[in-house]
């Protein structure tokens, strides 16, 4: 029997719900990007919003990522709360000047005169056969930039609650979605829910090993944890949800309990965000660690097209199972 307080919806519906609720709540929220209006987004995340809120507030843009991101910065300086969609996170390379040089720093550089409440939404990730220029996981680029917040939810409920918080936040937020995850379903409260930025969530409690993961890989981690449970390995799965600011305390608390830390993410392992978590835990909970942290990420290659190669490069459930199993043993 389904919980009447919950609705089982897709990740895309969760995104749309958040934007819709916030656009109804605050007339200063505007949305623009390539194909987000009439078409509803190439992944359907914004279907119906232009019809509901009109062409002034929901705008199709030309293929001009520098302009999309730059217009967001300008509109924010003038008091609006723009949501700018960059169709693929790979194209954030185009938009990065506005995000990294302008949005992230304008407040600081001007001694706090301005606020820049902007959400840069962008889908990343592979698994859909789009090859090297449409599949990257680039969260580490943006967590490295002071002035930005970075959110990478893995479940629809977190996507909805955190996107609402991101839209209400007074700072620029890079909100990373996963293109192969928009159809993933999960329970989302029927009532309004705003999830605070910077708070991790223990998705599964366990005693033997702490497994930290986010975005689509989080769902792989949860699956892996069930498999490992049947083998007698009790995995605690932590979803930081927000990467910047990072709730390291929740991770440290877990590691102090389990003594073991595994980080699994889809991004290239070298210089990936897992390294930051491993380093912070090593610095702050060295005494609690029974062995060195383990990172599970992609090898240092661009993402290949052909399915066997793509699957090989992106960490899968079985990779996490095998990695944790060997690590714990």
């Amino acid at each position, binding site marked *: 029997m389904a919980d009447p307080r919950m609705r089982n919806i897709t990740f895309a519906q969760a995104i749309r719900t958040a934007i819709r609720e916030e656009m109804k709540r605050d007339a200063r929220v505007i949305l623009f990007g390539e194909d987000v209006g009439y078409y509803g987004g190439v992944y359907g995340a914004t279907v119906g919003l232009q019809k509901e809120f009109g062409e002034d*507030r929901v705008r199709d843009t030309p293929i001009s990522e520098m302009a999309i991101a730059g217009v967001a910065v300008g509109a924010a300086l*003038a008091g*609006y709360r723009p949501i700018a969609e960059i169709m693929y996170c790979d194209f954030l390379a185009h938009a990065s*000047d506005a995000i990294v040089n*302008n949005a992230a720093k304008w407040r600081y*550089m*001007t001694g706090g*005169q301005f606020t820049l409440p902007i959400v840069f939404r962008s889908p990343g990730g592979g698994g859909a056969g789009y090859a090297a220029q449409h599949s990257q996981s680039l969260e580490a680029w943006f967590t490295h930039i002071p002035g930005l917040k970075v959110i990478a939810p893995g479940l629809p409920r977190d996507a909805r609650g955190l996107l609402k918080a991101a839209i209400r936040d007074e700072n620029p937020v890079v909100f990373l979605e996963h293109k192969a995850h928009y159809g993933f379903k999960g329970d989302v409260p029927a009532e309004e829910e705003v999830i605070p930025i910077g708070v991790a969530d223990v998705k599964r409690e366990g005693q033997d090993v702490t497994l930290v993961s986010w975005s689509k890989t989080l769902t792989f981690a949860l699956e892996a944890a069930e498999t490992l449970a049947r083998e007698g390995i009790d995995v605690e799965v932590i979803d930081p949800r927000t990467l910047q600011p990072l709730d390291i305390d929740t991770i440290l608390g877990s590691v102090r309990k389990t003594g073991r830390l595994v980080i699994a993410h889809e991004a290239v392992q070298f210089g990936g965000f897992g390294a930051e978590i491993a380093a912070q835990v090593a610095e702050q909970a060295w005494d609690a660690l029974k062995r060195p942290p383990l990172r599970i990420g992609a090898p240092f290659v661009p993402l290949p097209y052909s399915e066997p190669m793509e699957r090989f490069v992106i960490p899968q459930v079985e990779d996490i199972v095998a990695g944790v199993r060997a690590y714990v043993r």
Partner: protein
Amino acid sequence: MAAKNREQLLHFYEDMLRIRFFEEKIRDVLLPQKLFRGSSHLAIGQEAVAVGAIHALRPDDTVISTHRGHSHALAKGMDPPTVFAEIMGRRTGCCRGKGGSMHLADESLHFMGENPVVGSNAPMAAGLALAAKLDGSGRVTAAFFGEGALNTGAFHEAANLAALWSLPVLFLCENNLYAISVPLDKSSASLDLERRAEAYGIKGQRVNGMRVMEVYDAVSAAVEETRAKSVPSYLVFDTYRFEGHHTADKQTYRTHEEALEEFRKRDPIHILEFEMIDDHTVPIPTTIQYRDRIRAEIDQAFEEALAEPWPEPDDALSGVYAEGGE
């Protein structure tokens, strides 16, 4: 020049002198005494563009500038002491010492800041204009940039979008002939700079940027149209920077004689002075009085700023994020 313009001309004259003396102080005092860090991009020679254009705007119209933006900041009304203090890295500077010469801003004056990444302010200007259009505030946004920015993709993306969305924005190009060391004819395939946005339906205009009244008249007409019809305007001002790209520029790419000759022939302040004196709008003693008064004002502004306190080192850690979010 009609007598009825006397007050206005003197206002322009005063603002141009303020910018000139302010920047000469940087060149002649701050630089040799090492009172600022990095480099400072002087607009000496370009004052007529900043003053003529900004006087054609309403006080609540927004302005966004570039690395060469002291002129725009001062013309928009920023106080010399707070700007000096910022350039000298003092806690009381307009940006609390966090921005410096290239990041001057004053929200209360709708001077939204300098953006020293060339071309990067054009999309921001479109965004400011979009906000004004959605508000129905009747505000326009003016974006200043050098001719070097015309070769960036950001400018073209912004121009297309501004035309497509009918945004009330003025793209104001200060053509000072050099992008650091590279002269215009070696960086631009076409010298018809005023045609750069023609394909987007934005009719450009070429203006003598050394005559402040011509700048003022041209921008006034453009502002009127931009405000009334909510459409972008684009103007190119031919000007010249008499100093280097920045204070550390050795200027090996042009001769000293060239800059001197330009200064003799085209200094916008001399041009204005001579015209005012020639047609008896203003007698010579008045120009001298103005010069003395503004110079004294700048001297005092500098002394005031010099006495301002340094920030605490760990002030660096604050102000990265805005509080709150509800």
